[in-house]
């Protein structure tokens, strides 16, 4: 079965994706806004600078242009010029310019306002008062502007991205920390056994887990009560049923000794029926026990089988003799399987025990067997634990005993008789007592 996705990995993925998208979006926004604001700031600075230059140049513009047609050039300043400027007359001639400004007018147009002179300059144009219709171009290096804008945006975006990534890491850490109590509770529930006080659920550290903790604790308390009731019932039922059955058998045994010969066959049949009733009751009592933890200990199969006698059925045991399993449950299962053999006209049954991923107990008889269609139907019913009248008490009990040992029951496909295997992974071979 495919494992369901984990909350932590799904949340982590979501958080990382959201944080990354958020970081990229914020970074892009910061980039755009910062660049825009820097450009505005630079334009504003450019304009203000133009105003200053405009004021300073006002008196010098009374001087005419040079006779050779060349623009007058300001002397070179001691620093790098970040701003250049030109005064251009109506014929498009530069009549005055800063030291690094080109001879040729920066712009053809004379419209006041901002414009770009190719990729090289950002220019603000101002009309100068007077009849000469002079214009002032003040320009800023476009590359320098881009560089400043880029640098400002880059550092701001890096900072925003850094904060975003730091948030991702912090969120993941918080997520892990907050999901830790869930994982701890899940682990505690996995190990939790209401019958084992050593595995009690630890108190929860998050309010959201309290209902779950409370529900599990309440459920386990109800389960414990139910088990206690079943055990009490089982103990009472054992006493209430076993003793009268023993009395019935003993009375019949005495009656057989004291009765006239013509009554004995009838009494023998009655006693056989009483013995069958004993086995059914023992099986039912074992059913109650099969749901509980098996009582695993070492025992000899030969000793156990020696007590399981059926009229007309000879039973032999082979393979591993000393095993570790729940002897009472195994005895109940074998008793019912051998009872089935006896009722299906078997005269002999062989119980073979081998090691294979635990213990496998194989019961074979020479009886009438089970037709293949019915065998397949029974096997499916047992596998699905869909017990019904068709599976019978014996197979159902044997299957529950196998399941109590962590295993299963298989009706084998054999040409003659009936062969049933009980696989007991929790069982094992043991050393016989000296």
């Amino acid at each position, binding site marked *: 079965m495919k494992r369901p996705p984990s909350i932590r990995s799904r949340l982590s993925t979501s958080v990382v994706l959201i944080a990354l998208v958020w970081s990229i979006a914020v970074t892009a926004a910061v980039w755009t806004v910062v660049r825009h604001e820097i450009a505005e700031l630079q334009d504003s600075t450019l304009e203000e600078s133009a105003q200053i230059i405009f004021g300073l140049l006002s008196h010098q513009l009374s001087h005419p242009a040079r006779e050779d047609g060349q623009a007058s050039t300001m002397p070179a300043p001691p620093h790098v010029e970040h701003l250049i400027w030109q005064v251009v007359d109506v014929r498009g001639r530069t009549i005055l310019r800063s030291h690094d400004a080109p001879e040729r007018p920066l712009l053809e147009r004379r419209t006041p306002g901002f414009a770009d002179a190719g990729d090289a300059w950002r220019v603000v144009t101002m009309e100068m008062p007077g009849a000469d219709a002079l214009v002032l171009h003040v320009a800023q290096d476009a590359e320098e502007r881009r560089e400043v804008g880029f640098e400002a945006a880059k550092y701001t975006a890096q900072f925003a991205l850094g904060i975003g990534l730091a948030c991702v890491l912090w969120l993941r850490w918080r997520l892990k920390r907050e999901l830790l109590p869930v994982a701890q509770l899940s682990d505690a529930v996995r190990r939790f056994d209401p019958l084992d006080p050593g595995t009690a659920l630890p108190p929860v550290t998050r309010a959201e887990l309290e209902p779950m903790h409370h529900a599990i604790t309440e459920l386990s308390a109800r389960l414990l009560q139910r088990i206690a009731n079943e055990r009490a019932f089982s103990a009472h039922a054992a*006493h209430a049923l076993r*003793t009268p059955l023993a009395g019935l058998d003993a009375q019949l*045994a*005495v009656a057989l*000794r004291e009765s006239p010969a013509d009554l004995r066959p009838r009494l023998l049949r009655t006693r056989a029926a009483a013995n069958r009733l004993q086995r059914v*009751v*023992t099986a039912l009592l074992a059913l109650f026990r099969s749901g509980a933890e098996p009582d695993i200990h070492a025992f000899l199969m030969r000793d156990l089988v020696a007590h399981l006698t059926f009229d007309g059925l000879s039973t032999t045991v082979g393979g591993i003799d000393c095993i570790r399993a729940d002897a*009472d449950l195994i005895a109940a299962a074998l008793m019912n399987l051998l009872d089935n053999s006896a009722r299906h006209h078997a005269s002999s049954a062989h119980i073979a025990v081998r090691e294979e991923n635990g213990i496998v107990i194989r019961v074979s008889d020479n009886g009438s067997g089970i037709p293949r269609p019915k065998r397949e139907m029974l096997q499916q019913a047992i596998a699905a634990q869909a017990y019904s009248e068709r599976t019978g008490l014996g197979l159902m009990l044997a299957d529950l005993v196998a399941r109590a040992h962590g295993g299963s029951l298989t009706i084998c496909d054999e040409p003659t008789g009936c062969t049933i295997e009980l696989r007991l992974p929790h069982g094992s071979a043991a050393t016989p007592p000296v």
Partner: protein
Amino acid sequence: MRLLLLEDDTTLGEALRDFLSSEGHVVDWFGSLAEAKTLEQEAFDLLLVDWNLPDGAGTDWITSMRRRGNTTPAIILTARDRLGDRIRGLDSGADDYMVKPFAPEELAARVRAMGRRLSGVSSHLRRFGNVDIDLTARAIQVDGKPVQVTAREWALIEALVLRSGRIVSKSDLEALVSGFEGENMSNALEVHVSHLRRKLGKDLIETVRGMGYRIPA
């Protein structure tokens, strides 16, 4: 053997008493600990004790008797089938443990086995001179020929055989004989011993004056 049966279920108690009596044992059957305690000083060969009795646990009674030095063998008869119960039962001082329902034939076999253990001889076949006694088949042969004995006589000879070489007190044997219904003669023991000597030979049962009787080991 003289058996004390403690079983509160009337159907079972009555049937076990009758079955074991038919096996040649003398069975005193009681349904409560209070009744059994009145007979603690009596000599029984074996105690058959139900675990759950109306006035207490049979296992506790066995434990208290063991503390007082009573070593009479005991078999617990109970509906408790769990491993832990069997261990607790045997640890209480019992010698054997039988889970109900059981076949009375198996109980009888265990009683015989306990008797053999009591005598210190594991075989159920015993030979005393020309007398062969089969404790399981309850058969006696003298010079290879079968000899018929009554239930009372068998109870006496079995008690002596199981303690062969030891003196069995008169009072113990009288209690054994008096356990049979209709036995109210004051000299019943002597009469039965006399009958046994006539059937098995006068030298088999030795009288130890003032103490009781003995079969040589």
